[in-house]
């Protein structure tokens, strides 16, 4: 099969069948690209994962960009990204067309009154799990707490919060490095 078509369909399949996004997608991608297609070995996949989680953007999209690039260069990364984005794009488009016409329907309204509080719980749970998994200590826990307070109570833009944390971290790292050198 043409490698570009293969790339496209592998990622389209992953995009079309994973619900919940992000971390739910990772085992599926691994199965497809490591076990089935053999495009990467286990170690390379861990590298891909590390980069995709640290680079800005959506993790699954980042993985498709990276693997597409490793396999077939820039063109490959474009094709793989299209594959992973297109299924959700089409499906959401159809839902949006349908939903905007039913917005003022009484039944739809009642259903969403029940769904809204549930959604808030569904955001709180991954956040707590993430806090547990990243093993917050006093310092990192402090960063998390301050971020919550700044954004939700003092209405600071999350962009500024991320920038401040990033700048502090870089200065801290440089300071530590200099100290090591002086020793």
């Amino acid at each position, binding site marked *: 099969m043409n490698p570009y078509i293969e790339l496209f369909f592998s990622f389209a399949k992953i995009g079309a069948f994973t619900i919940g996004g*992000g971390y739910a997608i990772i085992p599926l991608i691994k199965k497809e690209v490591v076990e089935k297609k053999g495009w990467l070995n286990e170690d390379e996949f861990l590298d891909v994962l590390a980069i995709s989680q640290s680079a800005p953007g959506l993790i699954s999209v980042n993985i498709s960009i990276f693997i597409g690039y490793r396999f077939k260069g820039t063109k490959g990364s474009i094709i793989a990204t299209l594959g992973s984005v297109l299924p*959700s794009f089409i499906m959401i488009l159809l839902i949006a067309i349908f939903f905007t016409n039913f917005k003022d329907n009484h039944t739809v309204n009642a259903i969403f009154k029940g769904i809204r509080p549930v959604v808030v719980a569904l955001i709180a749970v991954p956040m707590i799990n993430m806090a547990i998994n990243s093993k917050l200590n006093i310092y990192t826990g402090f960063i998390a707490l301050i971020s919550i307070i700044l954004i939700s109570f003092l209405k600071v833009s999350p962009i500024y919060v991320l920038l401040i944390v990033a700048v502090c971290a870089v200065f801290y790292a440089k300071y530590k490095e200099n100290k090591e050198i002086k020793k």
Partner: protein
Amino acid sequence: MIYWELFSTFFIIGMFTIGGGYAMLSLIQNQVVTNHQWIDLQGFTDIIAVSQMTPGPIGINSATYIGYTVIKNLGYSNFWCFMGSLTATFAVVLPSFLIVLWICKLYSKFKNNYTFHTLLSALKPAVVGLIGAAAILLITPENFIDWKSWLLFGLAFIVSMWGKVNPILVILFGGIAGYLLY
């Protein structure tokens, strides 16, 4: 021009999303609901619900949906709404695209860089904070209309935290409860 605003807004959202889709929610909320007021908080909550129930990354789903709704709310036809979806989705992916390709080429340099690692370990807890803030900001009188809302919230929290129940089932259950209760 509305398309340029959509593009630049979602480009910024894509650029500052660290740690995946859930972290993106608080950025979308800040940019789309607070700054531009393209949709209200209630509409935003509905979009998250739809994004969680449909396949694919939550960030792509919300960009596509918001792109469509913003143009629709201005009274344009379906074709222009489609262009809105396309603009927002393209813009949200573009920064990752540029940055990941750049990192791919320089990965060996970053891999053992102390500053890079410190940066990541400091950003991780900030992302936890971002997601927490997204949840807190959605607790509004519009989303929590009465005690029944709080009951549904509590039940959903318990079943997904300790019961590990699939989020889609939790949303379906919320929808059925809403239909019966309201």
